[in-house]
């Protein structure tokens, strides 16, 4: 048996290494979860294929391409993070991590890194599939930059909302509620359905939702147009959700 030197020698690894380690382990665990993969890839791909072969009823690829990218951001940054964090809290993972050198800021940064890695993979696969099916986006250099900014703001907002949910509610409640909110906003949040198709009376409410800001902003950007209001809506949501998550998050259940 190999002898262990059990004498104390505590020292944290460099911050960047800690965050990368955490990001990699979370991304690996998320990829292994079949239910999350269904949300992340299978449903968006199914929508794209449906759009290719039934564009009259589902919508053209010109609209579905950016819409499906928005859907991918929504599922990975909100639903996956809410469910995984709720169970981390329930299983005591967060309690254990609180005493490690990772700490609260490292945990949040690591989670953000995991979401970025997963989203990057999703966006590459889904954009590739959409292009393969005939999507021909008309991004300009400026609208592409705006699209990237929108994705970053939306992902950060969704992660904060997910942490708020997971940090306050029981794991089972979070699981049910995160899936419910996912479906409700996919249908009613102008994420994949353009805002103009909703009844006029509902539009003022829907357009201040973060999902609408992302969906509308990406659809416009993919068409070479620049919309300013989605950036403002997402900034307001990010500020509110960030503060609420910071104040309201509980490490233990």
């Amino acid at each position, binding site marked *: 048996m190999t002898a262990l030197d*059990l*004498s104390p020698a505590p*020292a944290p690894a460099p911050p960047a290494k800690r965050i990368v380690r955490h990001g990699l382990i979370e991304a690996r*665990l998320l990829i292994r*979860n079949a239910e999350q993969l269904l949300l992340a890839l299978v449903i968006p791909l199914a929508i794209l294929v449906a759009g290719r072969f039934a564009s009259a009823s589902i919508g053209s690829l010109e609209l579905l391409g950016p819409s499906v990218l928005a859907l991918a951001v929504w599922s990975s940054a909100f639903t996956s993070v809410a469910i995984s964090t709720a169970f981390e809290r329930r299983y005591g993972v967060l309690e254990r991590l*609180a*005493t490690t*050198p990772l700490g609260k800021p490292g945990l949040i940064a690591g989670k953000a890194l995991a979401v970025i890695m997963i989203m990057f993979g999703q966006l590459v696969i889904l954009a590739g599939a959409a292009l393969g099916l005939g999507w021909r986006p008309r991004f300009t250099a400026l609208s592409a930059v705006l699209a990237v900014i929108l994705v970053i703001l939306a992902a950060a907002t969704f992660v904060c909302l997910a942490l708020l949910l997971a940090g306050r509610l029981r794991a089972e409640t979070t699981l049910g509620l995160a899936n419910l909110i996912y479906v409700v906003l996919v249908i009613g949040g102008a994420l994949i359905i353009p805002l103009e198709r909703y009844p006029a009376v509902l539009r003022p409410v829907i357009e201040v939702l973060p999902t609408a800001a992302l969906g509308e902003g990406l659809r416009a950007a993919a068409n070479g147009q620049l919309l300013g209001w989605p950036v403002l809506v997402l900034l307001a949501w990010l500020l509110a959700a960030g503060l609420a998550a910071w104040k309201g998050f509980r490490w233990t259940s």
Partner: protein
Amino acid sequence: MPSPDSAVRVDDLVVRFGSRTVLDGLALGAKTGALTAVLGPNGAGKTTLIRCCTGLIRPSEGTARVLGLPAGSRMLAGRIGLMPQSAGSWSGIRAIELLRYLAGLYANPLPVPALIERLGLTDCAKTPYRRLSGGQQQAVNLAGALVGRPELVFLDEPTAGMDPHARRATWLLLRELRANGVTMLLTTHAMDEAEALADQVFIVDGGRVAISGTVRQLTKSGESLESVFLTHTRARAAS
């Protein structure tokens, strides 16, 4: 009154959850380099005490200092190890993955293969955490608490669910840790565990210390430690 060389020192600690008072003026100290056992019935406040010491719960009143710093201070990160009572792990992660991940958060971690071998986990190192037996999960949790080579370790019922062989192996490991200068504070229901390991015992009931001393001091009248425990604590209805 806790001595100045306490690695852990809590004074007049009060924690309330709504109208329920969980800690009610708790005061104790864990001496540097010693193994301190906190005994108490379910609901006595043992886990809440550890959560206050690791900064997860902010007390309503009183103070908690750990290694000379306020509990929860970022300066403590990595200097303390925690073996939580609940799983403390993702359910789908393999034992070796969890320990490699935790080791990666530290600059001088224990070598993971040797730690796995020491805790008898070699055969189940690649088994997902949720498929491990209760005792194996406890062993992984203990390894997770030790992998960063901490100065101080909090162990919340460390041998619950272990078979007698695993318990004895764990006791041996805890004694080795103490011989190497690691301070430990453990909670337990097992009187034999406290008798076998503890330098100092605090019996806690209703969120405050009912009686404390060395095992020899507590049992000097010829009573067993269990008898002392039963005399100084109240039974609670099973919930």
